[in-house]
């Protein structure tokens, strides 16, 4: 058994900042992470981090763009915290060593991003997430924060409604161990692997979300799933929005700049939900290339500028598509990219279970509402990682260690035993592929009641079939098949709140676009969905959106 004041689950950008903040508060902190921290998906964030740091820019401007981008579903007091903290966050990261790109005189560069009326995305080439993650990791090394890497947390221990610890599985040798702690910060990032087309890493299976959900935490607004417009056709590798920020133009198979039709003012830099729908509409109406992709043209920038400002785009395009973007357009298509919803938290990162905090993509404060703007996710990880870490340390300081957990360890032990010997007809990959296909086809970019009903029932059926699973590997050491079986369970458990929440919400808002309810309905649906795990079923409740100074208006770009 291990024991620490604060347990941070996940070592990505939010987890690293949460751990650092709790450590600086004097708490004994440990990070429990399925991956080595620098392998976290934060490193894949490419284009930038937003802040009203430029001349004449204001936090209110940043906040308004974020709220309008969210289709008015974001909680405005939370967005205020995010955008007020943003400028100082950039400065702090620069002081800690992030190599932000600069101009000849030495001032930080910024560039325009989708849905922002002003250029306010700061960046380090087009590997901004990598640069910020390196800085965060460097600080963990400096501070000597305890790290349990390649330990996959499998279950939270909640006793009498309060956090008591967690159980984690050591990938290297199959050990299950109990970790006691006074508070936890869940920072396990994305969980988009239930979608057939996704820019998410293979390991982004929503483990923390599912764990928290099963432990009694509410999940908020899970039906809002972002589809990024520009993933590489085929492997669905992310081509950063910065490609359009630097001047990239999309064209359909007829050579038309189709965004002129859908967003006359912001064109290619309209928010992601709008651009993805536009591409999908072009494909549905037969104006995309066979296979459903369109062109992203950077040729007018020239190879040198692409290599200077977008080196990763250059690399991805040549290595994965065999296309030199200096010479030919890049074939792109929408793919699942981000989940706006997550573990419901307040402005301090606290969930409804005392002692459990969450931050980053797995959390929902809510900052992004129905659609997130590019450049706000990295910012959220740092600002709210820090806030949640500080709050968790304060909670741990005055709290006591809750006893218990032995039965959770036993239950997890039995689950692993079962996975190691179960010999049913269903394979992990077989079920996973069915789930991915189901969610992509039925709860994708455009949605309707009939499809989503099929999805809800389909997900439940997959959960039943999970009981007939067969895991092909029986070893203890680096048994990735066993790990994938645990991840699959998490993906299935998360798919239901996505599909149920989407089916229940009878309107179109942000990334949730219904062909049978094509308009936004503020009278009926200007509210957050909360999903609760009730063992054999999911319960949905609703809570109001916190509106401060920006009254909902029609969202046009």
């Amino acid at each position: 058994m291990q024991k620490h004041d604060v347990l941070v689950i996940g070592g990505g950008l939010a987890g690293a900042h949460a751990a650092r903040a709790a450590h600086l508060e004097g708490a004994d902190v440990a990070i429990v992470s399925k991956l080595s921290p620098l392998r976290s998906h934060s490193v894949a964030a490419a284009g930038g981090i937003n802040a009203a740091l430029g001349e004449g820019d204001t936090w209110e401007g940043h906040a308004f763009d974020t709220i309008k981008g969210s289709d008015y579903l974001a909680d405005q007091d939370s967005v205020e915290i995010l955008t007020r903290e943003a400028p100082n966050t950039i400065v702090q990261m620069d002081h800690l060593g992030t190599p932000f790109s600069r101009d000849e005189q030495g001032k930080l560069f910024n560039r325009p991003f989708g849905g922002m009326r002003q250029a306010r995305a700061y960046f380090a080439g087009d590997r901004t997430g990598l640069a910020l993650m390196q800085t965060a990791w460097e600080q963990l090394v400096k501070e000597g924060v305890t790290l349990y890497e390649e330990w996959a947390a499998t279950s939270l221990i909640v006793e009498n409604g309060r956090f008591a610890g967690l159980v984690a599985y050591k990938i290297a040798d199959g050990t299950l161990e109990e970790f006691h702690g006074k508070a936890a910060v869940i920072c396990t990032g994305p969980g988009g692997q239930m979608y057939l087309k996704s820019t998410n890493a293979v390991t982004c299976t929503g483990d923390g979300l599912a764990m928290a959900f099963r432990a009694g935490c509410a999940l908020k607004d899970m039906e809002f799933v972002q589809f990024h417009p520009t993933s590489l056709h085929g492997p669905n590798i992310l081509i950063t929005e910065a490609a359009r920020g630097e001047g990239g133009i999309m064209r359909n198979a007829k050579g038309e700049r189709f965004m002129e039709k859908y967003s006359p003012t912001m064109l290619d830099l309209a928010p992601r939900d709008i651009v993805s729908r536009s591409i999908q509409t072009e494909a549905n109406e037969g104006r995309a290339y066979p296979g459903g992709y369109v062109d992203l043209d950077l040729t007018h920038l020239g190879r040198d500028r692409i290599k200077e400002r977008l080196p990763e785009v250059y690399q991805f395009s040549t290595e994965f598509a065999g296309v030199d973007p200096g010479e030919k357009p890049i074939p792109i298509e929408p793919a699942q990219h981000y989940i706006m919803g997550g573990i419901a938290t307040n402005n301090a990162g606290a969930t409804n279970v005392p002692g459990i905090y969450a931050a980053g993509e797995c959390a929902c404060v809510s900052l992004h509402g129905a659609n997130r703007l590019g450049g706000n996710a990295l910012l959220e990880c740092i600002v709210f990682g820090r806030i949640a870490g500080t709050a968790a340390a304060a909670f741990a300081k005055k709290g006591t260690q809750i006893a218990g957990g032995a039965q959770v360890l036993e239950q997890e032990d039995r689950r692993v035993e079962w996975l190691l010997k179960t010999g049913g007809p269903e394979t992990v990959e077989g079920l996973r592929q069915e789930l991915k296909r189901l969610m992509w086809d039925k709860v994708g970019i455009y949605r309707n009641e009939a499809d989503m009903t099929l999805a809800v029932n389909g997900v439940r059926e997959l959960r039943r079939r999970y009981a007939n699973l067969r895991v092909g590997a029986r070893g203890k050491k680096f048994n990735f098949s066993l790990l994938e079986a645990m991840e699959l369970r998490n993906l299935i458990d998360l798919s239901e709140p996505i599909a149920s929440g989407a089916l229940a919400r009878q309107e179109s808002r942000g990334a949730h676009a219904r062909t049978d309810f094509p308009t936004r309905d503020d009278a009926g649906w200007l509210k957050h969905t909360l999903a609760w795990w009730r063992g054999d079923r999911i319960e949905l409740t609703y809570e109001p959106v916190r509106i401060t100074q920006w009254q909902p208006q029609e969202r046009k770009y």
Partner: protein
Amino acid sequence: MATIKVYRYDPEEGTEAHYDAWDLDVKPGQTVLDLLHEIHYYRDPTLAFRRSCRSAICGSCAMNINGRTGLSCNTQAKPLLDRDGSLVVEPMKNMPVLKDLVADMDGFWQAVYHIEPYLKPGAQPPKGPYVVPKARMDLLKIAQDCIMCGSCLSECTSREANPAYLGPAALAKAYRFVADARDADTVARLQMYSEPNGIWDCDTCLYCNEVCPIGVKPMDAIMYMREKSIEAGIPSQGAKHALAFYETVIESGKLNEFKTANKSLGLAGMASQGGIVAKVLLRGKTPDVRKRPIKGIEEVRKLEQLVERKRRKGASK
């Protein structure tokens, strides 16, 4: 159909390491990772390998592919098969194997921790961001994108000869702080990195630069730090050796092995190298200790003056 041979080792089975082979239909556009996934998901779920992002940014999936280390996720399979006629996938070198393609990276990380991989800023940072001109910040470019995949260490010939050598990734990380205008600890860093197993232990084979999947240039970074530590007058055997090399060439137009060894190691140090000396003598490779200047030594000295002038000009800038 193509045959993929994969290195297998399972510590739980207690059997020797061996290779398994699968016949797969390899389509254009498929990466080596795609093939490994196909084996793992549909043929042999026990096959173990790390992977995550599939887009060459997380650094999880470095392995040895047809004799050269790289990421499996951005290595196209078909061109390799067309070129070499076969595909052989093995774990990284210079690291113990834990299972199949999973390497123990502990030694890799220990070296990175050793170089104190975090910014040490001066006493008082500015109110806003540091003002660092682009040209200065661009110095970091040859190292800042390192994804810590381990490919360079796997191919490092100096590490192979000396397991205590810090290796290219750790030293590229070290460089990243040496070259950073915001770091206030440059000289102390260079002193630390000049210690044995640091920058002077690189044998300049260039493999690190060559195999890096993301274009980092660890060897360039190491050479930069060598120059800077000589400029800073940091004493080290490596610096002495380089200077002795230089001096004897200027003196006679060619290398004087005896003098070079004497200057960089000292007489006692040379005595400790007795074994090598004996071997050299046995093979008849005795260097000529007298070494008269070569014909045209004036040309060499002119070159020296030219280099000196250029260097001074650079330093005064």
